[in-house]
């Protein structure tokens, strides 16, 4: 299903904002959301009264859209969307805003994500702390000690290793590459370079994933403004046009093993053809891939299924340096969720915007015309093609 390109370049990201990323923000999620949002609105050259839509996502751990709108003093809004979802919703949230803009509902939509992922609610802890009997889908995973995403993604990675010969050393190359990028990023939580040996010697979390295969539990927020393209041209920064977006996938989730046809085919295989067609691009046109990287292996799987390399070749591809800033498709130039921090994927979208603008400082790639960003959770994911 390719769809038509009705929304192509009708909306653009015009402002971005961050709070500091830390292990202990000392602030509530509302304060974090507000700080990042105000920063993004100012960056777009706008005032809060210009915002006429607000979109966010979270899993009960973020600031509610209505409380942020109220705090910003928004008098009227044409579009409030408080989406309940995790990693797969990072690009979906931007897509949702872009749709509201493309359809003429709004002029400027604010998108944010705030969380205290380290000092507040930590992954794997909320479930185990409750220790109550579970129902719904969780009854078929939690009783077996499946408590955090690292375990279910570990099972997908394991199957990829068996089927294609991918190794934990390949994972190490991803960790080392993204950390090297984070060293050049003042915002990053982890700025000490690591080696393959450091990766190999880090402790197991859930085999085949070690500590250095996992993203950073993070406190912080980031936000962006999605504006009508024709207005965007008059704002201070070069707009990052939303050329296309997609949200979908198949049943390929370890958490619903009954629905899986193939443990090693991931969501991009299903959405990439339409995503590229609607943007009017081919995979070779993409200059930067801001891929969702909660775990190292997720980059390998997405490189294959977004079409940057052949199926099963993702491991050798990363080991060959192809995802470094000098490689054929730079990934995670900010250090990614692995080393910059985990603002549930939205920070990777902001990095893509920065690279398209050309204001990424020492991290700036030579020429970025087209960037891909993605988000992934369980069996589905979302993605954006952004263009200068």
């Amino acid at each position, binding site marked *: 299903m390719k769809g038509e390109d009705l929304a192509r370049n009708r909306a653009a990201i015009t402002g971005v904002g961050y709070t500091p990323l830390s292990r202990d923000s000392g602030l509530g999620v509302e304060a974090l959301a507000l700080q990042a949002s105000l920063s993004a609105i100012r960056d777009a050259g706008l005032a809060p009264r210009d915002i006429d839509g607000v979109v966010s996502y979270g899993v009960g751990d973020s600031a509610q859209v209505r409380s942020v709108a109220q705090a910003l003093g928004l008098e009227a809004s044409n579009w409030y969307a408080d989406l309940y979802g995790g990693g797969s919703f990072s690009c979906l949230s931007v897509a949702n805003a872009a749709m509201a803009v493309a359809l003429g509902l709004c002029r400027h939509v604010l998108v944010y994500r705030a969380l205290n992922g380290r000092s507040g609610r930590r992954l*794997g*802890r909320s*479930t*185990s702390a*409750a*220790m*109550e*009997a*579970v*129902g719904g*889908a969780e*009854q*078929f*995973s*939690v*009783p*077996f*000690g*499946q*408590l*955090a995403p*690292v*375990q*279910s993604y*570990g*099972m*997908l990675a*394991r*199957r990829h290793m*068996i089927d294609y010969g991918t190794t934990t050393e390949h994972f190490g190359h991803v960790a080392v590459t993204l950390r090297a990028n984070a060293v050049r990023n003042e915002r990053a939580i982890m700025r000490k370079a690591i080696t393959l040996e450091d990766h190999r010697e880090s*402790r*197991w*979390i*859930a*085999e*085949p*994933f070690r500590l250095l295969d996992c993203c950073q539990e993070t406190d912080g927020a980031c936000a962006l403004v999605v504006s009508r393209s024709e207005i965007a041209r008059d704002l201070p920064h070069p707009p990052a046009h939303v050329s296309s977006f997609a949200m979908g996938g198949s049943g390929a989730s*370890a*958490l619903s*093993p*009954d629905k*899986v*046809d193939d*443990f090693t085919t991931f969501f991009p295989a299903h959405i990439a053809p339409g995503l590229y067609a609607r943007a009017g691009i081919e995979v070779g046109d993409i200059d930067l891939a801001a891929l969702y990287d909660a775990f190292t292996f997720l980059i390998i799987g997405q490189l294959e299924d977004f079409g940057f390399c052949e199926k099963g070749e993702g491991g050798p591809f990363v080991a060959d340096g192809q995802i470094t800033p000098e490689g054929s498709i730079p990934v995670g130039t900010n250090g990614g969720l692995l080393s910059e921090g985990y603002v549930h994927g939205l920070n990777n979208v902001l990095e893509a915007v920065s690279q398209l603008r050309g204001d990424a400082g020492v991290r700036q790639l030579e020429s970025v015309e087209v960037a891909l960003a993605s988000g992934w959770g369980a069996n589905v994911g979302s993605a954006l093609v952004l263009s200068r």
Partner: protein
Amino acid sequence: MAEKPFRILPRVTGENEHFWCGGREGELRFLRCQPCGTYVHPPAPLCPDCLGKDLQVEAVSGRASVLTFTLNHHPWVPAADHPYAIAIVEIDEQPGLRLMTNIVGCPAESVHVGMRVRAVFEEHEDVFVPLFTPEGA
């Protein structure tokens, strides 16, 4: 792994009782569509294959193969034994009839993809958690 490691248990309802309590009789049970013969899991009101509504509880052999697994080391739950093996197994009776489970009765390090296993049940009052152990064990 200890005899009865820490577990967060399922909430037993009319819809899932056949699955969580079949172990009382030593049986691994699923809903099965009577017209087309498809085993349906997780429990659902309709057969996803033929949309038939006549689903009855039937036992399977309990034999299965490991499709993939992880050895968990991180102490999410302080009381659990580590490492423990979480696996996805496919039940012999039907391709795609799969469960997440733990592999027990063998060193965690010996678990591998393709391993042949059979169902055993861990009793927690009225709940019988289906776990899997190497076929010959």
